[in-house]
């Protein structure tokens, strides 16, 4: 055995020194015009991650929560689908909506549905939104070193009947929000939401109480993003969760 490495402290040293420059480019997708070949990367590694883009917005109200999302899936400059629903019902009081890679989103949503069913059978009750928030955080962190390429918003009615939105990053860091936006249009959507709703920096977080106003604003935000972001468009899908359950509506928006 190599005496230098006797303590095992530096067992990764050789691997570390041999490593090529940065690793971030292996994981995060490059801008489209720089992307050569997704399956066989220039440096020789395989990159399993693709960003299928799309935008989703969630806004919590006094006794409801509203999700507005587009339905476009892209890969590079190609549109793969114009009517993909990125929002999934988990319980009668809770939905999850995600941006990122469709394959991972689909898998994650299916996994959560299974976890909810297991919970219901084991504990003879439906999980609360607070429980699901923790569960989703743990599920994402469980894949810390090969994350789901999914950026999620968990939306539902909490135990006090209030709307709540939980925002996540890909590895399970999460926070309770009053509104959130994820996906390719998040940079465009965030300032509009900050302007229209009461958020992070307010001590008293007064939630909107009129569903129809919030619905119109949600639609407008997705529509405005679709004007500038080429990856957002085709349809707005509106999902409203309140004490009566979940309603889904769709409206066409620009398709170019």
């Amino acid at each position: 055995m190599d005496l230098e490495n006797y303590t095992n402290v530096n067992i990764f040293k050789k691997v570390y020194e041999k490593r090529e420059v940065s690793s971030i480019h292996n994981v995060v997708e490059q801008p489209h015009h720089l992307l050569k070949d997704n399956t066989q990367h220039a440096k020789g590694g395989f990159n399993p991650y693709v960003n299928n883009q799309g935008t989703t917005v969630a806004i919590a109200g006094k006794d409801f929560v509203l999700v507005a999302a587009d339905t476009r899936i892209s890969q590079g400059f190609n549109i793969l689908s114009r009517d993909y629903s990125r929002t999934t019902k988990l319980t009668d009081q809770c939905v999850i909506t995600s941006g990122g890679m469709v394959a991972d989103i689909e898998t994650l949503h299916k996994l959560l549905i299974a976890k909810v069913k297991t919970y219901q059978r084991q504990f003879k009750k439906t999980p609360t939104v607070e429980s699901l928030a923790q569960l989703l955080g743990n599920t994402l962190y469980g894949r810390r070193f090969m994350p789901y390429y999914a950026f999620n918003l968990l939306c539902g009615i909490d135990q006090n009947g209030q709307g709540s939105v939980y925002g996540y990053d890909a590895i399970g860091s999460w926070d309770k929000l009053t509104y959130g936006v994820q996906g390719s249009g998040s940079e465009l959507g965030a300032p509009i939401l900050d302007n229209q709703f009461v958020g992070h920096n307010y001590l008293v977080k007064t939630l909107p109480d009129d569903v129809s106003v919030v619905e119109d604003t949600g639609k407008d935000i997705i529509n405005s993003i679709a004007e500038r972001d080429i990856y957002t468009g085709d349809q707005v899908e509106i999902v409203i969760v309140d004490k009566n359950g979940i309603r889904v509506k769709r409206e066409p928006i620009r398709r170019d």
Partner: protein
Amino acid sequence: MWMGSKEHYDRGVNTFSPEGRIYQIEYAIEAIKFGSTAIGIRTNEGVVLGVEKKLPSKLMEPAKSEKLVEIDRHCGCAMSGIVGDARILVDHARVEAQNHRFNYAEAMSIEQITEAVSDLAINFGEGYEGTKRKPMARPYGVALLIAGVDDNGPQLYQTDPSGTFLQWQARAIGSGGDTAMTYIKESYHSNMTLAEAEKLVMQTLKSVMEEKIQSDNVEISIVRTDTKRLETRTQEYVNNIISTLA
């Protein structure tokens, strides 16, 4: 002819007798009856657990909370039988309760905690070949009273070595268990206050204990419905109740 004699069917823990009984489980249930008395009473205001602490010698230090322990903030446990076995079950219940908090950010329901204990309690025998961990070689010789408050309000459960668990309004286990049950049956009513229940627990303990009841040989804990927190009563508090007993 030895057939039909129970001697041969009580050797293995996995062997049924021709009458369909597993003697080792029945013997384990007998072991509980050697244990000191433990009582639980459920009221709308909360649940009370009380235990007798036997002090075989004057020289022994009265140990604190040996037979009345916390499983989680909202759930306590009283035991009767082989205390060493109970510790294995309680440790398991504590881990399950904390895991539930970690996974779901909520308190585990009392029924689920009880079920987790019972799942471990029936998992005895020789185990499977090739599996790393051997289970308990014999049934656990202990019964637990598991009490607490969850979304469904105050609850009291009892587990036994066969892995059965039952929900009770009031229950006594251990050496004075049967006598205590008759005693409690006379005085229990469903709209008791917590203070009345505490007094009934003490009164019952007094009537079934061999030694004179004192603040250092009994212990009581409660979980209130409004706070959902397990509280252990102080010796002064216990003394005050003792002084009011008939």
